[in-house]
C-alpha cells in the first residue's frame, strides 16, 4: 500500500514539475536585474527616473533586435561597469562569492556527520 502511494507520488511529482514548467523570456526579469545608477539601491524596474526610462527603451530595442539576455548584460556592463548588473557573473573573480555558500553547506554537513554515532548491529 505504502509502495503504491510512493509510486503514485513520484509520478505526480514528475507531472507537476515538468509538464507545466516554462521559461519565458520576459523583459521584466531583465529590468529587475539592472541597477538604476542614479537611484539609491533600486532596479530600473522599480524606478521612473530619466535614466531608468532610457535604459528600458534601450533594452526593449535590443530585445527587438534579437539580442539575448547575456548580450544585453554584456553591452550594459561594458558601458557602465559590472556594477549595473545585480547578478554577478560567474568568473574566477566572483568564484568565492558563488561557491563559498555551498562549500560551507558541505562542510557543515560533514561536521554533523562526524558527530553521528554509527548504529552497530
Amino acid at each position, binding site marked *: 500500500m505504502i509502495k503504491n502511494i510512493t509510486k503514485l507520488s513520484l509520478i505526480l511529482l514528475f507531472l507537476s514539475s515538468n509538464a507545466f514548467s516554462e521559461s519565458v523570456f520576459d523583459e521584466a526579469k531583465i529590468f529587475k536585474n539592472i541597477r538604476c*545608477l*542614479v537611484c539609491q539601491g533600486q532596479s530600473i524596474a522599480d524606478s521612473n527616473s*530619466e*535614466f531608468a*526610462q*532610457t*535604459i528600458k*527603451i*534601450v533594452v526593449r*530595442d535590443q530585445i527587438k533586435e534579437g539580442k539575448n539576455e547575456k548580450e544585453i548584460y554584456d553591452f550594459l556592463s*561594458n*558601458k*557602465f*561597469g559590472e*556594477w549595473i548588473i545585480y547578478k554577478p557573473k560567474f568568473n574566477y573573480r566572483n568564484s568565492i562569492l558563488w561557491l563559498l555558500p555551498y562549500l560551507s553547506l558541505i562542510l557543515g554537513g560533514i561536521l554533523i556527520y562526524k558527530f553521528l554515532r554509527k548504529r552497530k548491529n
Partner: protein
Amino acid sequence: MKFKRIVFFTIVFFILVVFFFALKKSNIYNTKNLIGQKIEPFEIISFENNEIVTEKNLQENNFTLINFWASWCSPCRVEHPFLISLSKTKKVKLIGVNFKDKKRNAQNFLNTLGNPYDLIVTDNNGTYSIHFGIYGIPESILIDKELKILAKFIGPIDKDDYKKIFEIIKNDKKYN
C-alpha cells in the same frame, strides 16, 4: 586548538582590514572603465539639418570633446561659460549631444547663452547617449583622433576639469 585560533584570527583581521580600507574609498560612482575604450560606430542625425553624423565626424580634429546637454538641465547653464571659452581656444573640437530636448527650447538656450559647439546632434529619446555610457546630464567625454576615450567628466565641467582637459592635451605624446 592552536591552529583553529590562528585561522580564526587571520580571517577576522583580514575582514576588518578590508573594511578599514573600504572606509577610505569614495562612494561616488564613476564609469572609469570606459577610459581607454574606443567609440563604436554610430549614426545620429544632426540638430540643424537632420544630416547623418557618424563616428567619422569625430575624427576631424586631434581632440574632440563630446558634451551631453539639454536646455532643461540647470547645471548645463553653469558649465556653459567653460564650454564657450574652450571653443575659443580652438584646441578641441566640440560636439554637443542634445539630450531629450525640445528643438525650440534648445535653440533658445543657444541663442541666449551662445553656441560653443562645432556640431550638434539630437538624441530624442536618450538612447544614443546610453551607447556612450552616459547616465546623467551633463556629462562630457574627451576623445582623440582614433576615437579612444581619454577622459570622462560627470556633472558640469568646472575649473579643475577645464584645466585637466588642457593637461591631457599637453601630455598626450601621440598628437604633440
